[in-house]
Structures are given as structure tokens and as C-alpha cells.
């Protein structure tokens, strides 16, 4: 079953001067078609300005395609009647942890989504407990978000979305403002949700090493999807990635260089363990 399906989605930002005349049009997303299956872990990779965040905002009906159609769980995002259903089934976590936490206590923030949906009080508490446990933040439930680290705040944000029981969570560069430890924790939480709760995860990022556990990777450049495939398929094309100025995980790069120098190694090695095994050490 496909949870998110895009057909020729195009989005144009129209720049206007002070009198409101059109100065220029920037095409942020250019005829993107993709099909994301329920339960998958998807990564969308790309540089700043590649259109990946704009595409992500379409999946939550914050933006609508200028042309083309995007369906979330079979519902057209342009259909205003379905707006709140779409936002409930496709939750979104943003980049800046400070700017998306509304509550003054962790548990209140997680309860914000369910409150908006009109869930009965007793069930809100069940959902909050369950979501905070799923991201391993339950012991912080009484804390003020201001006193948490960046990674902890992002996990609270994920819990806040999770409490709405979405089918799919879109993480729009959730780790861009975090330190390496915080990044690991957030990615671990996202993977656990995908494994245990079977929530579809769409991770938008420009960190290569975060994408190696994905089921599928889409690489975006100038508004279009330019590469698509499993991490192994994508990372075996080291030269192409380099040409697009994208970093390759260090281990993959090492294996690639070794292979170029004549060692017998398979393509697309993603982890240290795989390399050690392939080298027969």
C-alpha cells in the first residue's frame, strides 16, 4: 500500500516586487514523481536549495503543488475537507527544536497534538505516556523543554507527532542543529519507530551516514529527483555522487578507493563491519 504518492509535483515560488508585479519564478520542485510504501524508511538527500524541504512541506499539506498532484494515504492534499486528516496521518518534525515545542512542560507539549484532535483526556494521557516511552524520554516528562539538550528536544518533538498516531512521520532535517550525540539519538529513535511501531519514516537530510539504514534513498538536485534506489545501489555509484558534490560515508569511500587500487571488494559497502568482513580480517 502506498502512503505517499506524488505525480509530476511542481512547486513555484513567485517573487514579487513592491508593486506586486512578478519579478521572477523559482521552481523549487520540478515534476517530482514518487511512490512511498507504508512501513518504509525513506531518506531524501540533497544540498541546501535542492527542494527537499519544499517537497517535505507538500507531504503535510503546508504547501500545495502548483502543478501535479500529491496523495497522502490516498487523499489529495488539495482537498480542503481532508486537510486535518492528512495532517494527522502525516506528522511533521521540523529543523529547529526550539521553534516547534509549544508546551512549557514536556508532557504538555506531547499532549498538544491529541488535544487539538479532540481526544478524550484519559486517552491523551495514555498516548503521551506511550509516545514518550517510545522515544525514551519518559523520565523527562515533568521537565521544562528549555532545560533539555537539542537531541532531547527533537525526541520530544517526535513524541509529540507520534501521540497523534500518524501513519507516516516526515522529519525535515531534524538533526541539522544538533551535536553528533544528539544526532545519533534522534536517528536511533526514528529507526526504532520504524522497526517497532511500523510507522513510515521519511527522513530529509544532508548527512549521508544517516541514510545508510533507509530502505530507499531519493537524491534531489535543483528540484528534481536525480538518483533513486537502495543505499547499496546509491553508494556504489561513488563517482556520480562525487560529481554531485555529495559526501559519501567514509567507509564506503575507503572501500571504493581500495577497489580502485585493485583490491577485490564488492560495491556499496556501508558499514565498518561489512568492510572488515569483505577484507577477511
Amino acid at each position, binding site marked *: 500500500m502506498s502512503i505517499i504518492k506524488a505525480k509530476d509535483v511542481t512547486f513555484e515560488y513567485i517573487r514579487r516586487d513592491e508593486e506586486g508585479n512578478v519579478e521572477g519564478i523559482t521552481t523549487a520542485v520540478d515534476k517530482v514523481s514518487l511512490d512511498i510504501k507504508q512501513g518504509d524508511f525513506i531518506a531524501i538527500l540533497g544540498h541546501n536549495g535542492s527542494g527537499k524541504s519544499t517537497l517535505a512541506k507538500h507531504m*503535510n499539506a*503546508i504547501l500545495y503543488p502548483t502543478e501535479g498532484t500529491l496523495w497522502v494515504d490516498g487523499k489529495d492534499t488539495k482537498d480542503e475537507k481532508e486537510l*486535518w486528516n492528512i*495532517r*494527522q496521518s502525516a*506528522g*511533521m518534525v*521540523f529543523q*529547529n527544536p*526550539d*521553534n*516547534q*515545542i*509549544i*508546551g*512549557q*512542560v514536556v*508532557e*504538555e507539549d506531547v*499532549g*498538544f*497534538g*491529541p*488535544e*487539538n*484532535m*479532540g*481526544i*478524550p*483526556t484519559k486517552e*491523551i*494521557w495514555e498516548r*503521551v505516556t506511550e509516545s514518550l516511552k517510545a522515544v525514551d524520554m519518559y523520565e523527562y516528562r515533568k521537565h521544562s*523543554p*528549555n*532545560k533539555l539538550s537539542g537531541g532531547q528536544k527533537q525526541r520530544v518533538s517526535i513524541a*509529540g*507527532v507520534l501521540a*497523534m498516531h500518524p501513519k507516516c512521520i516526515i522529519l525535515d532535517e531534524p538533526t541539522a542543529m544538533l551535536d553528533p550525540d544528539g544526532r545519533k539519538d534522534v536517528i536511533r529513535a526514528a529507526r526504532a519507530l520504524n522497526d517497532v511501531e511500523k510507522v513510515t519514516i521519511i527522513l530529509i537530510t544532508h548527512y549521508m551516514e544517516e541514510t545508510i539504514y533507509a530502505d530507499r534513498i531519493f537524491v534531489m538536485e535543483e528540484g528534481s529527483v536525480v538518483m533513486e534506489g537502495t543505499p547499496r545501489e546509491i553508494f556504489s555509484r561513488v563517482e556520480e555522487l562525487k560529481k554531485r558534490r555529495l559526501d559519501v560515508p567514509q567507509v564506503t569511500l575507503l572501500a571504493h578507493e581500495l577497489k580502485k587500487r585493485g583490491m577485490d571488494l564488492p560495491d556499496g559497502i556501508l558499514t565498518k563491519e561489512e568492510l572488515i568482513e569483505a577484507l577477511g580480517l
Partner: protein
Amino acid sequence: MLRDITIGQYYQTESVIHKLDPRVKIGGTLIYIISLFLFENVWGYLLAALFLGLVIKLSHVPFRFMVRGMRAILFLLLLTLVFNLFLTPGEALITFWKLKITKEGIIMAVRMALRLSFLIIGSSIMTLTTTPNNLTDGMEKMMGPLKIFKVPVHEVAMMMSIALRFIPILMEETDKIMKAQIARGADFESGGLIKRAKSLVPLLVPLFISAFRRANDLAMAMEARCYRGGEGRTKMKPLVYKRRDYLSYLVIVGYLAGKIVLGIYL
């Protein structure tokens, strides 16, 4: 650390007063303030002081915290004292130069001072024992009926709680911008009032820009989490009156009745 500042003056401890419904505390404070201005005889003041003392005792908040609130109005208090002392006409007790202190003046001054102190201490008990969040919730619920007159009660309450959440963040940001400007040679400390006010411009402009950006992000995040105003919203922590809240209402009404009885018959 700037992140540790508490908004308002909430004092964290366990007590009956802390556990009360915020509506009881807001209502009780209002009734108490009104009662202070109802009747004026010695017994009335005694009762008011007794009631206040009882609540302070129950609240487990150290008395010096309440007095701290008094410091802010010390000037106002002195001013009222002086004016009442010298400007009340009546039987002169002490006269020097053109000023005279009258017997009525002394009584009036003491009365006003007592009233003001009781008023400040009474309302600071409310803010000391209720979290800002709870206060907002209580006010939202109490103002509920105003919705009929199209007063955006929920929206105002939401704005208040968002403001409370962002004050520490913006304080920290101010600090950051200030340091960045100082590093580039900005001077916030020397010069007269006007020069100092002018030097705040390079601080305020980036702060405002960032605040607007944050507001934009937050609005998007709220919409993404299905926020669509107060309509059809449920509460995670609904305000429900418990037995102790009804009892407190009884005590407050009892106090008011006592005050009226004392006022009429004594």
C-alpha cells in the same frame, strides 16, 4: 544561567494552597481585595489579618517571599502615608511650619498602609502558589462566558502561554546578539540615556527579525499538529473542582460574611 529564570514568582513546594484549583485562588483573591475596601473598623482589619495569616501559614511559602513583593510598592506606600498624614483635615496634633499632622490623618494613613500591604501580600500568595500555566488555564476557564460577546478568550490564553514559553528563549537570544555586537565593538554601557537608547537599536532589530522568524516557524509547527483554534479542542489537564476546592470556597464566603457581620454590628 538565563534558562533557569522563573517567570512570575512561583515558589515550588507542597501545600494545600498549591494544590487548589487556580479558579479558587483567582476568585478568592478578588473577594479578599474587595473585602479590604468594604468596612473599616478595627475588628474588620483584625479578621482580614487573621485570614491572611492563616493562608500564609497553609501555603508553606516563607514570609520573606511575600515581603519581597512589598519592596516594589514601597515608594507608593510611603507616598500614600505622607499624603494622608499631612493632608487630611482635622484636629491638629503636631504643627511645624505650614504642615500639621492630624489625628484623622494618622488613622487614615495607617488604614491605607494596612490595606495596601494586605492587598499586595494577598495577591502575591496567588502568584507564589500557582504556576503561570495554571493561572492562564484558570483565567481561560473563568473568562469562558465572555465568548458569547466574541471575546477571543482561548486565543488570548494561548498567546499568554506561548509568550511565557518564549521569554527565556528570547532572553538567551538577546544575550547572544549582545555578545556578538560587543565582540564587534558595540558599546552598550557608556554614555547618557539617549546614547544608550540609541545603542539598543542594533540589538533590537536582529532580535525582532529572529522573533518573527520563530513565530512563523511555530505557527507552521502548530498547524502541522492540527491546531485550529479552541473549537473542538480537548484538555489534557482539565480543571475539575475537587472537595478541597468547594471547601475553600466555603471558607472564603465564610470570611466575607464574617467581615460583613463585623462591619454592620460593631
